[in-house]
């Protein structure tokens, strides 16, 4: 077992364990903290996959931006009542069984089909430009229109969030 594989198993185990803790903790603040651990581990997986720019985006945008937003809202809404109530809905046994069947199906499909994933191993040419440069070239040349649409989407989301969180519209 190589060092890379050990790193992969460590990061995967960390991501999965903290993801399970996210959905089982009673206190929503603890869930946010464990979700941050999950996001960091997924960022480490990105590093293993030579996606350094996405690692930075993951840490800065997800952990630094979205999770802070979550923490703000968790602090804003009243937690003391919700902590004492039942945490799982009535249909949880059925939902758990269905989700596990779904995972078994997906895992079986991947396991049966994984011999098909052997085509690109031969073209292992080391990249001539850095990852950030490659992503930037793709973003601003091939995907220019989608980037503009994404910026409009963010604007719409920002305006929508402000309108909905406002106390009273005049």
């Amino acid at each position, binding site marked *: 077992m190589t060092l890379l594989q050990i790193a992969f198993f460590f990061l995967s185990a960390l991501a999965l364990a903290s993801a399970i803790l996210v959905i089982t903790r009673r206190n929503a603040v603890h869930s946010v903290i464990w979700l941050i651990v999950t996001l960091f581990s997924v960022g480490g997986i990105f590093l293993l996959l030579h996606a350094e720019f996405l690692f930075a985006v993951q840490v800065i945008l997800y952990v630094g931006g979205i999770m802070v937003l979550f923490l703000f809202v968790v602090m804003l809404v009243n937690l003391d009542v919700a902590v004492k109530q039942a945490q799982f809905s009535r249909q949880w046994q059925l939902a758990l069984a269905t989700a596990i069947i779904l995972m078994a199906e997906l895992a079986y499909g*991947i396991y049966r089909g994984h011999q098909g994933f052997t085509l690109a191993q031969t073209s292992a040419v080391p990249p001539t430009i850095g990852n950030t440069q490659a992503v930037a070239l793709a973003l601003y040349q091939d995907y220019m229109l989608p980037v503009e649409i994404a910026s409009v989407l963010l604007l719409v989301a920002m305006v929508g969030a402000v309108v909905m969180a406002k106390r009273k519209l005049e």
Partner: protein
Amino acid sequence: MIPIHWYLMLGTALFTVGVIGVLTRRNVIVILMSIELILNAVNVNLVAFSDYFRSVDGQVFVIFVITDAAAEAAIGLALIIALFRNKETVNADEIDLLKW
């Protein structure tokens, strides 16, 4: 060398944990966090195939997914604030204003 189907298995497991969170939890904030988990599982798959095919297109898609996640989190949390102001609850099964 890590085979690609290990990454796909990790994505599957993360996705399932997210689905379980969405389906079983009552707290709306935790449901939103489970949706973030699901999006991260998709991101793992996209980056794995991006590395596998030596093409950055998958990583560009991940950037768009993260954009969507940010927009979704902002809108969802604004909805939760508006809802908490009206109903004084964060439980998904008590939010039944549209139920006859």
